[in-house]
């Protein structure tokens, strides 16, 4: 079970590196925004797997807070891409 969980975490780290590649080399700003959004969503899964690995359920709180703040950050970045101010 533990070996499986470590493998799963390794796979998620690999996906995070793919997102980081897109953040680094994205031709335009929206590409980078997409990659940031996807990175946030996949790290929620990472936190959830850590919860199973360590047996402490507070990692679930971390995952939920991460999901919330990632959503708000993505909305803010998308508004900035649209050319709108923060409070319109």
């Amino acid at each position, binding site marked *: 079970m533990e070996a499986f969980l470590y493998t799963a975490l390794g796979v998620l780290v690999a996906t995070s590196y793919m997102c980081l590649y897109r953040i680094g080399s994205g031709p335009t700003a929206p590409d980078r925004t997409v990659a940031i959004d996807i990175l946030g969503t996949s790290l929620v899964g990472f936190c959830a797997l850590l919860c199973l690995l360590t047996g402490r359920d507070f990692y*679930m709180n971390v995952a*939920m807070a991460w999901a919330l703040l990632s959503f708000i950050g993505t909305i803010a970045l998308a508004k900035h891409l649209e050319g709108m101010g923060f409070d319109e």
Partner: protein
Amino acid sequence: MNEYIGVAIVIVGLAFDVFGCVGLVRLPDIYTRLQAATKCVTLGTCMILIGIAILTGLNATGVKALVCMAFVLITSPTAAHAIARGAYKFGVKLEEPTVVDRYAETQTDEGRS
């Protein structure tokens, strides 16, 4: 028995995560990248959370995983939609073999009026 089902669901979720991120790297255009990545990573994360809920059973962790899954399922398409709209307004054009673009008409209309 529950253990095997949970592990299988987590493995399928991980596979979808990998497909989504490969799509993020390989596809040519921001909109197609957004489609592949959003669909696959949303479903992959949801399946990982479901698998954890099955593995831990009905206690605080499992129920919290289900709440988290509902939240991801609601907000992730919304974020994708916001990015797509923002990218169109930002001026990113569609990839070359484009068949039809009905959204461009509204943009010019708005610009005129």
